[in-house]
């Protein structure tokens, strides 16, 4: 009887110890508050950016959950508004269009319009980064030379002859097929649905399956493969600065400290650096976690 009693006391003591130990947060400055769920859409750059923001938050004591590779904007946007994710790296121009606004090539203007547009949904756009990533229409060096292509408007001479390749949603997008048809008056012989500026599109372009590919301007693959990025001479693509978007709840919970931290990180990202990271992810098959960590260490946000 006494032995049973003693073992029960020991058991209870151990359980309480475990509970107390669990309640104490690890890390130097434990930040109390809701877990920040960082989300991303479905292409490489988004994974890298998501990892950058998630890692820097974790390093500063925030509790972070990752939900990456969720799908296209039609999936992540509702997720952000419903609170399923709390932080997402977005692009000023396209998001503004998605929210019903009209962007321009002016970064400041587009950003402030975006803030107004998403305010009603309880979302907050933090400071935008100098890094931009726009839709880019790309041909191989051989095609550019053969057909004399330097700008997107040059494609009009070959209406009805060339095949465009891009993500399946391209025919529904203003900055993709719709814009090419309306702003540039282009008429393609066909559209081949592939992936979102990823290896399938690159392989198809290299292999001659498509003539023009939609890739992203911050993708280092373009330079690495010697592709030619056609100049957007009629300014179809608006300013597309990278901007972390979060919810009012998160801002209320954490306030200016969080904002300052994320703003500092965003300010440090440049298009050139992002291109290099994208290229290493896309061509050299490096992990987004490693790439993000390396970048954060090089900028002094994390110690290693």
């Amino acid at each position: 009887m006494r032995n049973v009693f003693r073992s029960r006391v020991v058991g209870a003591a151990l359980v309480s110890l475990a509970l107390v130990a669990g309640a104490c947060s690890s890390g130097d400055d434990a930040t109390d508050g809701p877990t920040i769920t960082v989300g991303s859409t479905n292409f490489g750059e988004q994974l890298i950016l998501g990892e950058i923001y998630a890692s820097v938050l974790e390093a500063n004591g925030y509790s972070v959950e990752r939900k990456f590779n969720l799908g296209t904007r039609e999936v992540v946007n509702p997720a952000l508004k419903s609170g399923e994710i709390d932080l997402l790296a977005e692009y000023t121009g396209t998001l503004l269009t998605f929210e019903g606004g009209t962007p321009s090539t002016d970064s400041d203007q587009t950003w402030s319009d975006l803030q107004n547009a998403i305010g009603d949904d309880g979302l907050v756009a933090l400071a935008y980064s100098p890094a931009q990533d726009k839709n880019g229409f790309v041909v191989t060096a051989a095609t550019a030379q053969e057909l004399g292509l330097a700008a997107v408007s040059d494609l009009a001479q070959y209406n009805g002859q060339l095949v465009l390749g891009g993500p399946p949603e391209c025919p529904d997008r203003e900055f993709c097929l719709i814009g090419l048809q309306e702003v540039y008056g282009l008429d393609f012989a066909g559209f081949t649905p592939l992936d979102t500026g990823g290896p399938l599109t690159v392989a198809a372009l290299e292999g001659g399956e498509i003539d023009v590919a939609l890739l992203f301007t911050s993708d280092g693959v373009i330079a690495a493969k010697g592709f030619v990025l056609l100049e957007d001479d009629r300014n179809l693509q608006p300013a597309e600065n990278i901007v972390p978007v979060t919810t009012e709840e998160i801002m209320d919970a954490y306030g200016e400290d969080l904002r300052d931290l994320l703003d500092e990180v965003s300010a440090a990202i440049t298009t050139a650096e992002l291109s290099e990271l994208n290229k290493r992810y896309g061509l050299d098959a490096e992990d987004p976690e490693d790439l993000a960590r390396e970048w954060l260490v090089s900028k002094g946000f994390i110690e290693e």
Partner: protein
Amino acid sequence: MIEFFGDLARWFADNWDGTAGYLNRTWEHVQVSGLAVVVASAIGVPLGAWLGHTGKGGLAVVSVVNIGRALPSFGIVALALPITIRIADRVPFIDSGLGFLPTFIALLALALPPIFTNTFAGVRNVSRDTVEAARGMGVTERRILVDVELPIASPVVLAGIRTSAVQVVATATLGALVGYGGLGRYIIDGFAVQDDLQIVAGALLVAVLSVATELGFGALQRRIVPPPLRRGTSLRRRALRRLQPSARTPA
């Protein structure tokens, strides 16, 4: 909910024509599935039948063929892609390394195992007595296979082709991931823009096509399989039925 069905009905009314219409997409779907099953049968039935007849090397071949069953079709499509893109440049009659070719390869790998395995097992399981009797009558090996074993094994062989066809039709939706058309296009494109209507319509079409394939092969089976071998009919009963009426009816 009712509204959704209304929208769905309207979708079916509006989207039947053109390259992106479901008549064309169904035809594309049938093309790649049909070719995969036909080629798989052309390879699997002779190979399975011959190996089943001779009884040699069966295990080794069955193992190799079953790799097609083990490898996920999605994986095969992705693996085939760099190869097909390169081939498309060299080989004259192949237009594109995207779309049809990698899908066909993945579906062929999926279609082959049931057809081969069923044919092999069906021929192996033909009663040895029957085969010996035929041999005793002086029938050549080849004719034993073609005139005796295959007809007797036909229900099993056809069941294999039927299973294979239904699986292939259901899996051909993968083609949409590598730029092919087919009914998978509705599911992939619908998902990209979160158009639930398109996704449901596409899924419904695939389901209907799969069921139609199953029923179609059922009908084919009824035509091809020799009457005495059809399920539920014993040879004896049929033979008895052919007897004089007077021998059957009671006095």
